[in-house]
């Protein structure tokens, strides 16, 4: 009797969300075409958070480091659009809207942040705002327009990345409905993964399991990764119903979304949650309306109360939305990392284990730069951006 054939791979990427797809995309470009790369997902490709989110490609100017990281990623998104396309890329820019007087004061602050990074953003008075977006309420005091942002359809982007990867390297395999169920190790070295469809012998695994990344490392008896699900409720309206053309956010969004959480993220009850308006036109003419944030574990039931509050705010800015038909609502889980930076790089206690997870509300924006950064680390070539702030080892100290 022949010995059972065990599948082998040079690299296994565990988790087929936007991050896993971007990792595969860049590995395929950087490593020789005979490298065997297997992407596994427990469910569909792009079926979890990356199929339940918005597709705002966002440059965040809060610090020079963040600006560089997000702006580099946006450049890579534009490159993917050139290379492959097929994901409804719209370079709409972003409008940061003010309502209350204290919001108006934030506009020049945000403008200065963009300028300090050598970029531009324009403050619009009410007349200019109406000209750009006639669907907005006539009494809004002003806004900041940042031209660099864009919008994509994330699920289609995952497919585009994988198509490009498979053309570049025919040894890239994509396997949905194939969960990682365990690992094989030899001392502190990874030697393989167990999957729902049999074992794979491999010396390298990239954990791209989003909010489930801690589950995977727990299978290796590692200390818990500091990533916690942060729920977001979304609403989408019917075709040809959007009163707006630009990606819109409340100017307070940045502080709300990227500022320190006011509650303990490890608790799954007791967080009342919050919201800041985020409205995104879709290519079919519908409008995505977010965005809420709440820690409550992996619970994906709709929080009707938070949805109502964000809808009310959205109608404050774009009154025409009141008449739009709601087609569906749903909940996605952002992978929140406790220090608000993603974890990208090796996990030193287990040789051969890499992590790319914890992007909270910026995973779509940051997927390409993440994919390239970890691919460069794995390939052992100099990284194009400074890897230090993102190294997972910072949580081992």
């Amino acid at each position, binding site marked *: 009797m022949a010995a059972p054939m065990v599948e082998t791979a040079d690299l296994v990427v565990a988790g087929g969300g936007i991050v896993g797809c971007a990792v595969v995309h860049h590995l395929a470009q950087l490593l020789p075409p005979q490298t065997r790369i297997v992407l596994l997902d427990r469910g569909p*490709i792009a079926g979890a958070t990356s199929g339940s989110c918005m597709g705002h490609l966002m440059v965040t100017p809060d610090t020079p480091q963040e600006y560089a990281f997000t702006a580099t990623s946006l450049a890579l998104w534009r490159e993917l659009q050139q290379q492959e396309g097929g994901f409804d890329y719209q370079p709409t820019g972003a409008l940061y809207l003010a309502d209350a007087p204290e919001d108006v004061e934030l506009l020049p602050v945000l403008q200065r942040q963009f300028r300090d990074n050598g970029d531009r953003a324009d403050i619009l008075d009410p007349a200019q705002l109406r000209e750009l977006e006639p669907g907005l309420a006539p009494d809004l005091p002003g806004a900041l327009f940042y031209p660099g942002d864009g919008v994509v359809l994330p*699920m289609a982007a995952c497919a585009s990345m994988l198509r490009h990867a498979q053309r570049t390297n025919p040894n890239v395999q994509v396997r949905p409905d194939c969960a990682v169920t365990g690992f094989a190790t030899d001392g502190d070295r990874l030697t393989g993964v167990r999957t729902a469809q049999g074992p794979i012998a491999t010396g390298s695994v990239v954990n791209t399991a989003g909010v489930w990344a801690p589950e995977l490392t727990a299978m290796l008896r590692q200390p818990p990764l500091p990533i916690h699900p942060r729920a977001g409720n979304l609403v989408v309206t019917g*075709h040809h119903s959007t009163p707006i053309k630009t990606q819109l956010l409340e100017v307070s969004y940045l502080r709300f979304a990227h500022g320190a959480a006011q509650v303990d993220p490890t608790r799954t009850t007791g967080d009342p949650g919050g919201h800041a308006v985020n409205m995104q036109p879709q290519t079919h003419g519908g409008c995505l309306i977010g965005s809420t944030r709440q820690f409550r574990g992996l619970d994906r039931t709709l929080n*009707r109360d938070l949805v109502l509050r964000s809808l009310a705010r959205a109608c404050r800015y774009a009154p025409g939305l009141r008449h739009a038909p*709601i087609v569906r609502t749903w909940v996605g889980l952002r992978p929140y990392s406790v220090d608000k930076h993603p974890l990208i790089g090796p996990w030193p206690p287990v040789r051969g284990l890499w992590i790319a997870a914890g992007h909270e509300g910026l995973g779509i924006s940051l997927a390409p730069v993440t994919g390239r950064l970890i691919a460069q680390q794995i390939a052992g070539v100099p990284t194009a951006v400074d890897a230090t702030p993102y190294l997972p080892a910072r949580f081992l100290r």
Partner: protein
Amino acid sequence: MNAAADPGAGRVLDADVGVVGAGPAGLAAAGSLARAGLSVVVLDEGQRAGGQIFRQPSPRVAGCGAAPPSHRRGRGLLAAFAQSGARLCSGVTVWDARPGRLWFEQAAESWLVRCERVLLAPGAYDRSIPFPGWTLPGVVTAGALQIMGRAGVVPGKRALVAGSGPLLLPTVAALLGAGVQVVAALEASPRSSAWRALPGLLGHGGRRAEAFWYLRKLLGARVRLRSGWTLFGCEGEDRVQRALIGKVDAEGRPRRDTARSIEVDVVGAGFGLVPSIELGLLLGCRSRCDPRRGGHCLDVDGEQRTSVPTVFAAGEVCGIGGAEVAIAEGELAAAAIVKDLRGVPVPPALAVAAARERRAADRLLGCFPPLPGLCDLATADTIVCRCEDVRLEQTRAAAALHGRSLRAIKVGCRAGMGPCQGRICGPSLQALANGLPGQPADLPVVQVPVKPVRVQTVLDAPRG
């Protein structure tokens, strides 16, 4: 502003029982409940009560064509309902539900029904099977064509009716009643199916009379119901002008060598019905998959109670069965609710009658088994999801890359993401995309709103 503290500008109705659907099941139940002294609110999407089968013709065309015997029963049901004191809200959309709560939109208004018990009788949808040209103007579902026929507003003069199951006959009859020529009537199941259905029909008083009435109608107009034939596709410039028809094998696979073209200007295609279970799923009711009864149905006990103790279900939502089943189950559900709220025991005869009707319906439908081969009608560029304009080849590419589940196909190509939320394409989407004819569809995940409603309606919804 704090919307959370705002109670919502909409209005509230209090009742003992909230009923969704004014078809045979809902009407029979609501009448019984009201006669037992309970306050009842019935919510229905149609402009007039009656559901799919007993929908009253609009006053404008009243008397258009004679009605089959069952419609006398329907008129009786409607009259009894009208006198029962149950309150009917028609032209409304129920969009959210929780046990004891039903939210609905009527015109531009937002309403909440607060009740002790909910009865779901939302009926069924036509099962669509995509074929080339099914999106052309002039091509509609058999059910829609039947309704147009009864309303006397058929958009054509030469009709083709094709599909499978007992509903083709009433569609043909409605067209004849409206004075439309029926060029062909095609039943995809083999002739033996129809013969096997006969004893079931003849052994059941109501169905026998009904079947004879329809057959007489067809004979009178010299329309032959051809078994083992179906519609391969439709063609036309701005609307349907020709249909390609031909024979199918015992599994429904088209035999292309038999294809021939006929001139028609309106086509009704109906391949059975699919239970409308979304509200039940939203309420957390357990479902089960029974391909013979149309796929996923709500699971009920011997007294029509779902797995959620205060929620009952009756009629097609518990599995396709027809009007007789719907009436019997509606009456049984009403009795069970009266037992819950008034302590009056359920008359055993009602449970016996409902079970008997179900058995008879199961036997009849068992003669028209699903025909997986009909999946072969669609070609690579046939649109599968009408809402999002997704073609068969795109669903195949999505399944190949993203995975075989309904969710995977949906995220992979947007099929089922539009306003109908997969109600039209969902039941056959997975089998088509995976190239696995006969593969049962995953249970869809439903979310609020179960049907599209305006943002303002949601904002105004009374809390509670």
